[in-house]
């Protein structure tokens, strides 16, 4: 299929339709509203379900209901709306059914603003809802990647009976890029052995997240964890750029990752041996791949559009073997590549590892804050 110029939000909507999306429930919120608007036209014309819910609470619980029925269903929202959905996500996780949620993130906390941000990383990756549950989180950096990950989201959600969230910042949602749409998949209901779709001469089924006996709930938690181990073993995805001989490794996801790519290219042109590692699955996080890179790296630079959330995962992967530096622009600010280039040059020219190989450990978030304060 030839490439077309697609706006991120609309591309996500169409990619979901082509992946067999049967039902969408959502509520308007900038900067993701185009997903809702697109599907309000597209789904009814295909005879599929679309409801503009009364709130994000309503929307996620409609998703919950349709997911119990065993169909491909999704919602989308932006940060404040996703906070409202956390109750439903926890229930969906506890019920062990597949559902897909797209969060086109904006600046926060609170009402914040509508500019692109990555401040919901922890909410997405660490949980957000109550209880102990894993979830898959995908972080596209381009329109094409968002399209490709949309279909994957449904496949993963169904394979592991788990929530798959796609987190992207507002700029990917609003951006247009040439992209290729996959062919239309036919809707076929998979007749899951757990779906509550009307007994019709079989044993009746119950779907719930209630386990009053703590021992049963404990077993459920352990079952979720075992399934998560499978996800960790099979589903880690990331992209590497210029890593072969890289001594400084920049790590960024989504837009922060692609902005870093521009900085890395320019630094390379200046003769600096720098590469980029861009996680695509931020949950499961590519701990092992990053851990291996500590063998070749002199320093890591984590760059995010927040105050350093993925930073903690990188620190877990690195476990003190290599100094980690951080550069972030929180609050809805998209960094320019020049800023990241400056950071790369700073690390390049002022070695932060001592000659004896004992690394000097500064708190990367604190030293970043100091630099930000000095700059202001």
């Amino acid at each position: 299929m030839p490439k077309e110029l697609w706006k991120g939000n609309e591309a996500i909507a169409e990619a979901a339709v082509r992946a067999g999306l049967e039902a969408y429930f959502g509520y308007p919120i900038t900067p993701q509203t185009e997903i809702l608007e697109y599907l309000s036209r597209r789904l009814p014309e295909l005879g599929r379900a679309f409801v503009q819910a009364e709130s994000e609470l309503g929307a996620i619980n409609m998703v919950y209901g349709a997911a119990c029925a065993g169909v491909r269903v999704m919602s989308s929202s932006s940060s404040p709306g996703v906070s409202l959905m956390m109750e439903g996500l926890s229930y969906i996780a506890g019920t062990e059914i597949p559902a897909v949620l797209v969060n086109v993130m904006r600046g926060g906390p609170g009402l914040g603003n509508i500019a692109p941000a990555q401040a919901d990383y922890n909410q997405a990756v660490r949980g957000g809802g109550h209880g102990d549950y894993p979830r898959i989180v995908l972080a596209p950096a381009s329109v094409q990647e968002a399209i490709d990950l949309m279909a994957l989201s449904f496949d993963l959600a169904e394979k592991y009976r788990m929530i798959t969230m796609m987190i992207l910042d507002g700029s990917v949602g609003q951006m247009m890029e040439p992209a290729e749409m996959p062919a239309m998949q036919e809707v076929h209901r998979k007749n899951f052995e757990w779906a509550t779709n009307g007994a019709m001469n079989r044993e009746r089924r119950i779907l719930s997240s209630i386990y009053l006996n703590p021992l049963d709930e404990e077993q459920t938690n352990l079952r979720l964890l075992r399934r998560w181990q499978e996800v960790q073993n099979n589903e880690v995805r990331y992209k590497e750029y210029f890593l072969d001989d890289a001594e400084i490794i920049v790590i960024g996801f989504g837009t922060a990752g692609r902005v870093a790519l521009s900085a890395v290219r320019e630094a390379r042109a200046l003769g600096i041996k720098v590469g980029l590692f861009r996680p695509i699955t931020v949950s499961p996080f590519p701990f092992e791949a990053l851990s291996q890179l500590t063998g070749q790296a002199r320093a890591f630079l984590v760059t995010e559009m927040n105050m350093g959330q993925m930073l903690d995962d990188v620190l877990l992967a690195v476990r003190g073997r290599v100094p980690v530096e951080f550069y972030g622009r929180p609050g809805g600010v998209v960094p320019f590549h020049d800023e990241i280039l400056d950071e790369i040059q700073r690390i390049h020219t002022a070695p932060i590892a001592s000659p004896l190989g004992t690394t000097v450990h500064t708190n990367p978030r604190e030293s970043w804050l100091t630099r930000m304060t000095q700059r202001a």
Partner: protein
Amino acid sequence: MTTPNLVYERPEAFTEMPTHYCPGCTHGVAHRLVAEVLEEMKIIDRTIGVAPVGCAVFAYNYFDTDFVEAPHGRAPAMATGIKRVLPDRVVFTYQGDGDLASIGMGEIVHAAARGENITVIFINNANFGMTGGQMAPTTLPGMKTTSSPNGRDVETQGYPIKVSEMLSTLEGVGYCVRRSLHDPKNIRLAKKAIRTAFETQVRGLGFSMVELLSTCPTNWGITPVNSLKFVEEHMVPAYPLGDYKISDAIKQIKI
């Protein structure tokens, strides 16, 4: 196995599980009426129930149909999700007054406004039963609960919400009535209303709800018999029984 002398048996739509409801509570009566209707309409195997959070949280244990268990107040949203992707199935929620009229007010109003083709069984017993008898939006003025120990003071705690009256103003509602479970005559009328509500759904005639005035002897702190009297003497005057909305198409239904 039916015998000529049989006057009472477990409805086919019930499982063998004994209910956990308190002695004298009318949840059991309401459950049975729903079960009888599902059986009579021969829709057990295509019905999906949505349980609430509240005393009826375990409703899924008692009905022999597919069932899901909703977050507190969200049953109408879940039912919407199910019904929209399975329009040929019968979907009902069973909700108490804390679930439906307090935390879930948004969901119920909008499901009704959209005319979702679902059936809602609404149990109004004027308090939060499961958590031990706190004030609900339906608690009567002056009524003592564990969170209105001096009696509901309307000056600071507001007035009861009359859900049937309120929902009946919405165009999307096809059938909206209030019945009571305090005596056999009213129970028979309640069953007929529940039947009509499900008939409304299978005919695609819009949102249907039956509000049932119910007892809560344990939390009210009175005997089952006095609870029934309380319903008759105090709740019925505050929540008048009647047909709040029956669309013309539904009036034609003959049962």
